[in-house]
């Protein structure tokens, strides 16, 4: 498995970070669900997954008023993207 080097897009209102892998991917019908606490996609004894990580990350990103989502065809590879809005400058 590889991880694409995390990258950052810098636009006028927000920073957008993303990280990608070439793992099994996540089918579209599960892409919202995986951020729910304890929600996994494989059985407990098949993969060491607690379903906690992504829900924690979502909470952190939301605490920054950001958004998190992913792009994946469900066959190979997932790209996780999150945005962090820039503070509004008072002039």
């Amino acid at each position, binding site marked *: 498995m590889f991880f694409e080097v995390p990258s950052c897009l810098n636009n006028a209102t927000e920073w957008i970070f993303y990280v990608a892998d070439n793992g099994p991917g996540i089918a579209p019908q*599960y892409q919202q*669900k995986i951020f*729910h606490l*304890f*929600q*996994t*996609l*494989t*059985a*407990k*004894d098949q993969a060491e997954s607690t*379903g906690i990580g992504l829900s924690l990350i979502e909470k952190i990103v939301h605490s920054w008023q950001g958004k998190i989502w992913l792009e994946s065809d469900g066959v190979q590879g997932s790209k996780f993207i999150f945005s962090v809005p820039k503070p509004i400058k008072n002039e």
Partner: protein
Amino acid sequence: MNNIKPILLAEDDHVDIMTVRRACKQLNVLNELVVANNGEEVICYLDDPKVPLPCLIILDINMPKMNGLECLKILKQHSVYKSIPVFILSSSREQQDVDSSFSGGISGYILKPVEFNEFLHSIKVLNSHWTVGS
């Protein structure tokens, strides 16, 4: 004995599946125990016209792909499946899980006990109340 309806268990942890099987065996439960590994598999099983509908459904809460509460919601919205009694079998003591299970229409909430004899007792009660005559 072919007219005995099966019991459908939705559970993804093999140790827990074995525990339920062991309890059913010890209590001489005659109903076949059908295992689904997640909520999606429960719906798939029920939608299969070739298999008999279960007399009761036991759902774990935390399962991959579709969890027990989500599955419960779909079951209780279905014109036929809504009349099958559903039990939650979970290790969660969270009031929120218990409340949403009952408001979702379950017939009972069984906490997964750590001790086998306690568990045996839970299944014994379940069996005597819900599988008699079905």
